[in-house]
């Protein structure tokens, strides 16, 4: 193996591919990436057995192709720290000599035979989506998945395709984000799958390239996407997922409009005086205003007032402020509306078109 490439483009590729590699893998071999060089360029492959990626990089010149396993973290370190625009790779017995700017490194390479097979994209069954709407789906929902491991499929996002709509739904059991986009669906594909959070995050990373479209292939057990330079596959999450339309409240008792930025800032102020153990902010809606209050035993109290024109009855309802802030932040809208259905039933926030965010309140028990 012998070739020359641009340090910057190799670094970008490595950063994306490296994000798939699990930092502490039970299988040490998975801490490596596979580098395959052919006359047309280089392919970087990595997997943690849940998500797999092949990433194509153009090279300046290939003298001789090859196939090796290299430790991701060390390579990343080299490409980050070294200077110079060009990098030269050359096999040297069982090692690889990398020269970059003033540095020269000899990295032991491993045998690629042991490396798991990274699936390649099957164009036959694929359908095409515009890249930007697909990205929107991911970005407006993934944050709402559960961080802790759960029994349900809450560590993933449900992806539905039906008619001319594609939709993603994410929930951690306490709040839910639902985003839909219109699509062309000439093949009339109908699908409903749960994609793990990490898969989606990796999708999001490779959707940066200049291609306008992304090809998607949904199979029984995995989903794959292909962009101009990358193919990413992700295992699907098994398990049941709640029906989003059953969760979104239909009958609300109050709704109130807000400036997005003003509401965000008020929530953040009130959240300052909460703590981990009592993370709640009380929203008191009354004629012409919303008063946000918080109180934490060992911290203090906050009170923030906002003007608004409420529609419906005055009500007090408490929420985890993080849930509200996270949902509101992703909304692409100047103004939004909070609708409350009761003290212990879900509230919804609308603003951006085709996006609904639902949050369950915190109730205050008192003896």
């Amino acid at each position, binding site marked *: 193996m012998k070739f020359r490439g641009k340090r910057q483009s190799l670094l970008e590729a490595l950063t994306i591919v490296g994000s798939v590699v699990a930092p502490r893998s039970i299988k040490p071999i998975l801490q490596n990436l596979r580098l395959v060089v052919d006359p047309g360029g280089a392919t970087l492959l990595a997997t943690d057995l849940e998500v797999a990626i092949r990433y194509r990089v153009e090279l300046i010149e290939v003298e001789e192709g090859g196939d090796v396993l290299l430790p991701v973290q060390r390579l990343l370190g080299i490409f980050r720290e070294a200077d110079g625009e060009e990098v030269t790779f050359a096999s040297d017995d069982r090692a690889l000599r990398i020269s970059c700017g003033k540095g020269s490194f000899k990295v032991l390479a491993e045998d690629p035979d042991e490396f798991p097979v990274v699936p390649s994209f099957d164009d036959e069954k694929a359908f095409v989506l515009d890249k930007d709407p697909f990205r929107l789906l991911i970005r407006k929902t993934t944050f709402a998945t559960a961080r802790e491991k759960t*029994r*349900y499929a809450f560590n993933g996002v449900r992806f539905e395709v039906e008619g001319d709509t594609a939709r993603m739904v994410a929930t951690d*059991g*306490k709040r839910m984000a639902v985003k839909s986009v219109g699509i062309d669906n000439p093949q009339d594909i109908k699908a409903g799958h749960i994609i793990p959070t990490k898969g989606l995050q990796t999708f999001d990373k490779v959707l940066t390239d200049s291609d306008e479209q992304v090809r998607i292939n949904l199979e029984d057990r995995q989903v794959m996407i292909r962009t101009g330079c990358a193919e990413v596959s992700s295992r699907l999450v098994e398990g049941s997922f709640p029906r989003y339309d059953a969760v979104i409240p239909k009958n609300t008792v109050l709704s109130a409009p807000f400036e997005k930025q003003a509401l965000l800032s008020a929530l953040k102020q009130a959240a300052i005086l909460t703590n981990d153990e009592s993370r709640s902010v009380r929203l008191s809606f009354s004629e012409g205003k919303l008063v946000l209050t918080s109180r934490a035993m060992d911290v203090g109290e906050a009170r923030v007032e906002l003007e608004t024109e409420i529609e419906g009855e005055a009500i007090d309802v408490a929420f985890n402020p993080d849930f509200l802030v996270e949902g509101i932040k992703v909304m692409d809208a100047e103004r939004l509306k909070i609708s409350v259905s009761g003290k212990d039933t*879900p509230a919804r926030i609308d603003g951006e078109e085709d996006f609904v965010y639902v*949050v*369950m309140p*915190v*109730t205050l*028990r008192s003896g």
Partner: protein
Amino acid sequence: MASLIRVLPEEIANRIAAGEVIERPAAVLKELVENAFDADATHLEIDLEAGGTRLVRVRDDGHGMSTDDLALCVQSHATSKIASIDDLFRVASFGFRGEALPSIASVSETTILSRRAEDEVGARLQCRGGEIEGPVPAGGPVGTTVEVRNLFFNVPARRKFLKAERTELSQALEVVTRLLLPEPDVGVRVSHNGKRVLEIAPDRDLRGRVGALFGRRLVEPLLETEVQDGDISMHALIGPPSLARTNTRQQYLFLNGRYIKDRSLSFAIKDAYRGLIMPKEHPVTFLFIQVNPGDVDVNVHPTKTEVRFRDKDRVFGLVRRGVRARLLEDGADRPLKMGSQQAGAPATRATMLADLERELFSDSPTGSPAREADGPSVTFVPTAVPDDQVSTNPCKGHARARPVPLTEADAGMSGRFIQIHRSYIVVESSEGLRIVDQHALHERRLYEELLRRFESAEGEDQRLLVPEVVDLGAADQALLLDKSDDLKALGIEVEPFGGTSVCVQSVPLALSRLSPEDLVLGLVATLQEEGAKLDRRELCSEVAAGLACRAAVKFNDSLPDDEIAALLAWSARNPDARNCPHGRPVAVSVDLRELENQFQRKK
């Protein structure tokens, strides 16, 4: 054909029955000392030979016996202490069966010498294997001397079961300990094979008595408390959690001055230390409970260490509350033990006995007695200081320069801490430094938070948008649903859900780090362990402990500074929160003086 069935002569019946109670010299000693107490003795002279197998002699200064009584006292069921069966339930004396002396006399060579104050001369009675001789007039001081020689001389089978001399002796000394602890105004002298082994003057108080029997070092750190609930009262000396042991040998429980064993009270003690010591550790406790003699039945077992209370729950409650309250009043970290200077473990009874035995039996194994481990031990290795940093006086030996202790205000508020290894937080304190276990402290805080909410029935609950359904199986489902009212008070709303599942509707906000499923499984585990017998309070303590552990930050979690500061501030406000609910210490501290020792700045 001759009849095979015969009525056993009384003498043989006694010999058989004697085995039940009189198994070894220690049992003889116990009966004799109890009789002396019943006779209002204030001083005892005890002489033992060959661990008591050759001789047990108890001389008392009690009220003695008349010649007539002396003749009767070795007769079966002859007792001066009970006249009717009604009295049996009101016994305030040690003896009540009138069996001890006949039993002992039937298996030994017993001599009793007694004189009352009002009699000019006393009398002597001799008895060899039940054959009575006397009484004959005899001179002697006021009081009674009972001498039991050659125990089991006529029962070879029993003699075989006697243990080595030092085992018998240590059992006899244990008997003395149990009998004398609750009687601080009685003095005793014990000798063995002619050598004095114990001499205890009448003590002023309980602390003095425990000290006399167990050594000053054990008694000093003990916490004293007296509590009362109507006609039930408790006087106790209890060890701080740091004094906990790996066995229960240092737990003494007395009821109306009588040594007893009681599983339920042991549990009350364990419960009182819950969260303060490790589950496998046992605290040092000396508990003296008084109840109305009519409210307790001591006739459950012939050896009388088991009792039956009329109002068990009240006694239980008093013990648990009293001990717990006293423990929580006290507050200090465990000291960090430095490598070279093992903070001397308090002398234990085991080590005292070991010392004693070494002195008595030259053949006994020597070497330092095994000390019981208490608390974490950390080796402190002094680091070399580069020369250029120490060129000025502070190292020249007579270093006076000492760090100025911080004032309270500096200590908590200086904000000087660092997180090390994403696991511990090192904090400057007024006495030196504290090393805080982040998981243990956070766990304790969550635990208190959950308990507080339970007690005040207040709290914030995160309702679930998607109620979590967990299939538990029939048994666990029933276990959980049985407690659903109690759990609701904790903010955990569970409902039955088709088949063997339950459905979680809300979780306490403080536990929202935990997935509802983990929470339910944690609950079930707690319930399985402790069973359904827990009352609401105990249940909540258990549940809070179990869940707090699951929800607390773990080791290797890096913590932002403001969270650390909040944890430390909480700790400062709750100085009694010294252990996590499972008993691991929350913090250890290093005293400045100890640092000075280590750096050899102080002699």
